[in-house]
C-alpha cells in the first residue's frame, strides 16, 4: 500500500530519465536543468514555510551565498568546483543554524524580519561589487561579486568537473542527468526528514507551538534542524547553478524571484514536498515562455497567485488529494466493471 503514494513521482522520474533521449533541443534541456534547480530551492523553502511555519524571506540570499561563494572560491582561488560547491553549502548550513537561533530570543516575527533584512543586505552587497577581486583580477578592475553584471560575466565560473565528466552549460545532457539525480536524492532526504519524528514535532510546532512545548518538544532543536537543512539545499542549488551556468547575476536572487518562489510553493501546495516540485515544472516553464515580456510575466504570476490564495489555497497538491478522494474509487470501479462486462 505504501508504494501507491509514490506512483506519480516514480512515473515522473521515469519520464524525466528518458526525455533527453527523445528531445535533443539544448534549450529545452537547459530549461529542465533550471526547473530541477528551482524545484530544489522551492522544496527546501517548503521545509521552513510549509512544515515549520516560518517565513524565511532570505532563502534566495542563501541561494546567492552558495552561488557566489562557491563561484568566487573556484574562479578566483582556484578551488576545484565540487569542493567549492560543498564548502558553499556548508556555509549556508551554518548560517541557517545561526538564523534559527534568532527565534530563541525574539520569536517567529523577528525571524521573518531578520531574514528580510538579511536578504536586502546581501542583495545590496552583491550589487555593489563587494570590493575588488583578489589578486590579479582585482588589479584588472574586476570586483569580487561582479556587481550588477554578475559573477562570471567577463570570465566564466569554472564548470563542474567530476572525473571525466564535465558538467556545464556546454554539455547539456550530463548537466541534465546530474541535476536530476541531485534533485531526486535531495527530495528523498527531505521526504524522510518530514516523515520522521522530526516531521511530527515540526508540524506540531507549526500548528500549536504552545501545545507542542507543553508536550515536551524543544522548539529550538527542530527549528534549527529544519532551517539549517533548508538553507543547506538552497546553498547547494546555488553552487550548482553557478558552476553549470557559468554566470551568477543578482537578478536571480532578487525580490521578483522571491515572489515567484513563494508563488510556486503556494500554488503547488504548502507542506507537501511534491506539490512545489510539480508546480515549479509548470511555473518555471511559464516564466521562461513569458521571459521576454517582463510586465506580462509579473501580472500573470501575480494573478495565478491571487487565484490560488483566494479560491484554492491548498494548491495543486490539495486538488490532487481532493480528486483522489472523490473520484479515484469511482474510476477504479468503472474500470473494474468495464473489464468484467
Amino acid at each position, binding site marked *: 500500500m505504501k508504494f501507491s503514494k509514490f506512483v506519480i513521482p516514480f512515473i515522473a522520474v521515469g519520464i524525466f530519465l528518458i526525455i533527453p533521449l527523445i528531445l535533443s533541443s539544448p534549450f529545452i534541456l537547459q530549461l529542465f536543468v533550471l526547473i530541477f534547480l528551482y524545484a530544489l530551492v522551492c522544496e527546501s523553502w517548503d521545509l521552513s514555510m510549509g512544515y515549520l511555519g516560518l517565513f524565511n524571506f532570505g532563502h534566495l540570499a542563501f541561494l546567492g551565498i552558495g552561488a557566489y561563494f562557491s563561484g568566487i572560491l573556484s574562479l578566483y582561488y582556484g578551488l576545484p568546483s565540487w569542493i567549492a560547491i560543498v564548502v558553499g553549502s556548508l556555509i549556508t548550513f551554518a548560517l541557517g543554524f545561526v538564523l534559527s537561533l534568532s527565534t530563541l530570543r525574539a520569536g517567529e516575527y523577528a525571524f521573518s524580519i531578520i531574514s528580510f533584512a538579511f536578504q536586502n543586505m546581501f542583495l545590496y552587497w552583491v550589487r555593489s561589487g563587494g570590493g575588488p577581486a583578489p589578486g590579479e583580477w582585482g588589479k584588472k578592475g574586476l570586483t569580487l561579486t561582479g556587481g550588477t553584471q554578475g559573477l562570471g560575466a567577463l570570465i566564466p565560473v569554472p564548470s563542474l568537473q567530476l572525473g571525466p565528466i564535465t558538467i556545464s552549460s556546454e554539455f547539456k545532457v550530463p548537466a541534465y542527468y546530474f541535476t536530476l539525480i541531485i534533485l531526486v536524492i535531495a527530495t528523498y532526504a527531505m521526504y524522510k526528514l518530514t516523515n520522521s519524528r522530526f516531521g511530527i514535532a515540526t508540524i506540531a510546532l507549526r500548528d500549536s507551538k504552545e501545545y507542542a512545548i507543553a*508536550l515536551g518538544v524543544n522548539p529550538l532543536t527542530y527549528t534549527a534542524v529544519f532551517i539549517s537543512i533548508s538553507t543547506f539545499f538552497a546553498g547547494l542549488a546555488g553552487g550548482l547553478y553557478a558552476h553549470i551556468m557559468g554566470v551568477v547575476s543578482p537578478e536571480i536572487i532578487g525580490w521578483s524571484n522571491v515572489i515567484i518562489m513563494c508563488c510556486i510553493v503556494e500554488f503547488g501546495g504548502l507542506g507537501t514536498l511534491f506539490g512545489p516540485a510539480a508546480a515549479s515544472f509548470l511555473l518555471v516553464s511559464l516564466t521562461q515562455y513569458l521571459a521576454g515580456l517582463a510586465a506580462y510575466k509579473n501580472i500573470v504570476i501575480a494573478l495565478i497567485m491571487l487565484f490560488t490564495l483566494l479560491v484554492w489555497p491548498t494548491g495543486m497538491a490539495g486538488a490532487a488529494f481532493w480528486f483522489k478522494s472523490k473520484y479515484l474509487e469511482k474510476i477504479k470501479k468503472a474500470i473494474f466493471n468495464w473489464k468484467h462486462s
Partner: protein
Amino acid sequence: METLLECKEVSKYFGDFVALDKVSFSLPEGITFGIAGPNGAGKTTLFNVITCNPYPPSSGKVIFNGKEIQKLKPYEIVHKGIVRTFQIPVRFRGLTFIKSVMVGSVYGNLANLKQNIFNYNRDKFEKNALEALELVGLVNKKDEFTVHASLYDLKLLMIASAIATKPKLLLLDEPVSGLTDHEIKLMWDLILKIHKELDITIIIIEHILKFLMNVSDEVMILNSGQVICKGRPEEVAKNPEAIKCYLGEESKEIFKSEMDKV
C-alpha cells in the same frame, strides 16, 4: 505520603494587575486535588506558572520532588514529569490522532527521547501512544486527522497525549467544561481510572462543583489570585468565605442548607 509539589508564595503580575497573590499549598503524592473559584480567579494562571508555559511566576517558588522548577524551560518541566491539558482544546491540525499522541510519547518522556537518538524505536512509541489511546477509548479513530474532531474527542485526545508522556503529575484544566451530562459521567470514570491504574497525582480545575467535590480528595478555592480556603471537600463546601466568593453574601445561608442536604 511524600510531598510531590509545593508552591511557596507564588505570585504573578501583569504590569499592575495581580493575577496570583502569594499562593501557597502543598500537594501530597497520589491524591486528586481540586481547584475551584470564580472566573478570573487565577486558576489557569496558576497552571501556567507551574509549568512555565507560557510564562514563569513573577516571584515565589515551585518545588517539585524536592527541586525548584520555576526557572526551568517549559519543555524541561515536562521532562521532569509534570504535564497539563488546556481549557480550550488545542489540536495539531496537520496530524492524525495517533501522531498527536506520539508527540507526547516521543518528546514528553526524557528517557524515551534520549534513548532513541541513535536507535529510533518507532514501534515502541507507537505502542505507548496506542496504550494511551486505548485508555481514553479513542483507538478506533487513531488514523483520523484531528481537524474534524468533536469537542469531547479533543478533550480525550489531550488527556491521552498527556498520559503518553508518562507523567508523575497531571494538571487538568476544566476537563468537563462544555460537555453533556453523559460525557461528564464518562470523564469522571476516566479520571478515576487514571488515578487508580496509572498512579498519577492529579490536579483538576473545574467549575462544576458537584463533579469537583466528588472526584477530589482535597480542594482549594481561589479568588482574585488569593487562596480563600483549602481542605477536604466537605469542609470547604461549608466554608462561608468559599460560598461568599461564588454567590455573594446573601446567598450564604441558602447555599449552606443545600450543601447540607447533599
